[in-house]
């Protein structure tokens, strides 16, 4: 038994952290936030060269063939730095292809995703707050996909949309290149500009090999992977919030004392630490199950995401509040993290969804 990281994983963590601090600090994040599409080709290319875009893609398809525990290490650090780059959605699209694609489809797409020559995103549900096969309503008839997919992550920069839909054969994933005729993308204004979402409007006829079958199990698996990935980024984001707020409490004087001396502040920071430690532990176990105990994944992912969703949302708000007025100015960074926690809360299921699932899995 070993509930820790290997030396290689620690090196990977250092590498990502240095990348975020050096190449993508918050000043750069803000510049990317100000762009129209929310992207940065240059930084994405650097990530591609470091191999991170195909981290969990099998080596046979050009990836590094690492595990979700390794991915977790990367995502904690991109979350800590509030990375606006589409690593999560891109990875999930690759995971969808690896799981649901035919050998030919995998060969056709995965190497391009792993190398970054194609940027992909995964779009599952058509309802804003319902995680269920019935919440996939977009329909293709005779391979013609007409309608729109809302809430598509990183829609501004993706070249390939992996879109859940219904076909005559049942639930499917459609592989839709952005540049196909009949595809239009409209980015939506959302509160977290590091996580752009968009609506993809479609009227497009696809080839047979642009569809993959999506069993209910696959849909649940991809959702769980999404929950794990979002939670991993939340660990980093929440730790960054705690670190900023703790540092502030150590230098801000009010009523003649450092505010960090008051238990009203200390205890809230301690509770943040308790929560972060806890959903981090739940996350690590969930990440491990993806590759090593997939039958445990549903419960593990739900426990982690349920705990993280609410705890991080509270941490986001309290991080701002404990800073006092400075915390909610646009130029101060802590409010960016608040927006990230609000973004992450419903992503791949909120706490109501996941706790309900835990109860059901527990036999209630």
């Amino acid at each position, binding site marked *: 038994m070993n509930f820790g990281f290997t030396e290689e994983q620690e090196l990977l963590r250092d590498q990502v952290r240095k990348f975020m601090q050096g190449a993508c600090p918050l000043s750069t994040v803000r510049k990317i936030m100000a762009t129209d599409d929310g992207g940065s080709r240059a930084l994405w290319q650097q990530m591609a060269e470091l191999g991170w875009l195909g981290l969990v893609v099998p080596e046979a398809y050009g990836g590094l063939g690492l595990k979700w525990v390794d991915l977790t290490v990367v995502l904690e650090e991109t979350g800590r730095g509030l990375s606006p780059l589409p690593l999560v959605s891109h990875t999930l699209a690759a995971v969808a292809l690896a799981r649901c694609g035919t050998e030919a489809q995998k060969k056709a797409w995965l190497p391009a995703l792993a190398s970054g020559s194609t940027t992909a995103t995964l779009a599952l549900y058509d*309802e*804003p*707050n*319902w*995680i*269920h096969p*019935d*919440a996939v309503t977009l329909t293709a008839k005779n391979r013609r996909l007409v309608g729109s997919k*809302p*809430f598509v992550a990183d829609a501004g920069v993706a070249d390939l949309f992996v879109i859940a839909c219904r076909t005559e054969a049942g639930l499917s994933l459609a592989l839709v290149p952005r540049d196909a005729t009949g595809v239009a993308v*409209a980015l*939506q*204004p*959302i*509160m*977290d500009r590091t996580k752009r*979402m968009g*609506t993809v409007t479609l009227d497009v006829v696809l080839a047979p090999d642009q569809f993959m079958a999506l069993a209910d199990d696959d849909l649940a698996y991809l959702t769980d992977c999404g929950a794990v990935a979002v939670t991993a980024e939340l660990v980093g984001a929440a730790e960054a919030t705690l670190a900023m707020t703790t540092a502030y409490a150590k230098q801000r*004087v*009010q*009523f*003649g*004392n450092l505010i960090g*001396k*008051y238990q*009203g*502040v200390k205890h809230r920071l301690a509770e943040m630490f308790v929560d972060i430690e806890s959903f981090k532990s739940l996350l690590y176990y969930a990440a491990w199950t993806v590759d090593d105990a997939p039958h445990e994944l549903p419960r593990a992912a739900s426990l982690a995401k349920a705990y993280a969703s609410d705890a991080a*949302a509270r941490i986001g*708000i309290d991080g*701002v*509040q404990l800073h*006092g*007025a*400075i*915390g*909610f*100015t*646009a*130029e101060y960074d802590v*409010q960016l993290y*608040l*927006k990230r926690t*609000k*973004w992450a*809360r*419903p*992503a791949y299921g*909120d706490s*109501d*969804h996941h706790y*309900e699932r835990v109860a059901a899995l527990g036999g209630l």
Partner: protein
Amino acid sequence: MDFELSASEEAFRQEVRDFLKENLPPPRERGPNFLSEWLTKVRAKRWVGFSWPKEVGGGGGSIIEQAILKEEMALAKAPPLGMSMMGLAWVGPGIIQYGTDEQKQRFIPDILDSKVTWCTGYSEPNHGSDLAAIQTKAELTADGKHYVVNGQKIWTSLAPWADWIILLTRTQFDVDVKHKGITCLLVDMKTPGVEVRPIENMAGDRHFAEVFFTNAKVPVENRLGKEGEGWMVTVSALANERSSIGEVTQLYDKLDTLRDLVKRSKKNGQPASNDQSTRRRIAEFEAKIAAMKYNGMRYLTKQLKGEPLSSETSVNKLHRASLEIDMDDFAVALSGAAGLELAGGAEAVDKGKWAKASLGWPNVVIGGGTPNIQRNIIAERILGLPKDGSD
């Protein structure tokens, strides 16, 4: 205990309602001159500065009538009674209590007539909530005719639009307790050496500003109260907050909107109004708002009986802080991914108003003294617990 109004109070309520019926057209029917006409009319009714003494041009209204007036205005979603919120809330009462006759004649009518708007220069960069620790310096010139002001204020709301500022300055630095040596000045924002820099908040608004003072000269006759008495003047002015009847009406109104959102929403594929925890959250909000309402009435009754109010208003401030944060956040969370979209978003809920409001709470929550400060006030002033820190 009696929740009925007296005949004359009922008559006053009816008077307000009749006035509103006649003078408050629906938003779409309001012309370009509507607001100035409105202000003229409510001024003519003496409803601006309603509780101020008649001698200075106020309405001389009773506490109950004031509550009725606020409630009816809030119910009708009427425009404000006068444009200088700060002038009416704090500056006017401060001048009435501590001002010279000249100051009253010069400043009060302009506030009541909405000709001049005010902002309040209290907080400074290094001691937000700790007002008594201010460092902005005011020095009397050798001829005793002016104060020369140097320093910086921050979180000054409405500063970008205000004509005048009520300013806390320090005229003495070698004091044994920090509350001494503070002097209150009334300063024209057009004074050379006064510079306003708006601050953008996380919701993208610019209601607040930094205000810089560089050798700004303020005539000595614009000092409010005596030199060194600024703390007392300020505390009295801040104590002028009355019952929160109007706030409660706004919160009830917001709760209605929220209930309506619930009725229109789905959650997990089912009507959200069937969702047990959603139903309970709405009911909990109602309980807190109702508690604020009846708390406010109890404290109002205390005032009516002439009993001194202690710091009970902190109770409602704490409720309001949690409601401000929680109600919008609840609406955002209820709507899942759609709740994140701002105005203009294809799926934005209620044109993104909940999303935006969920980023706007610090204006209220932090501006009025943080919840932790309110808790300290209750613990120390009401429960008599010792002060914390090394004070």
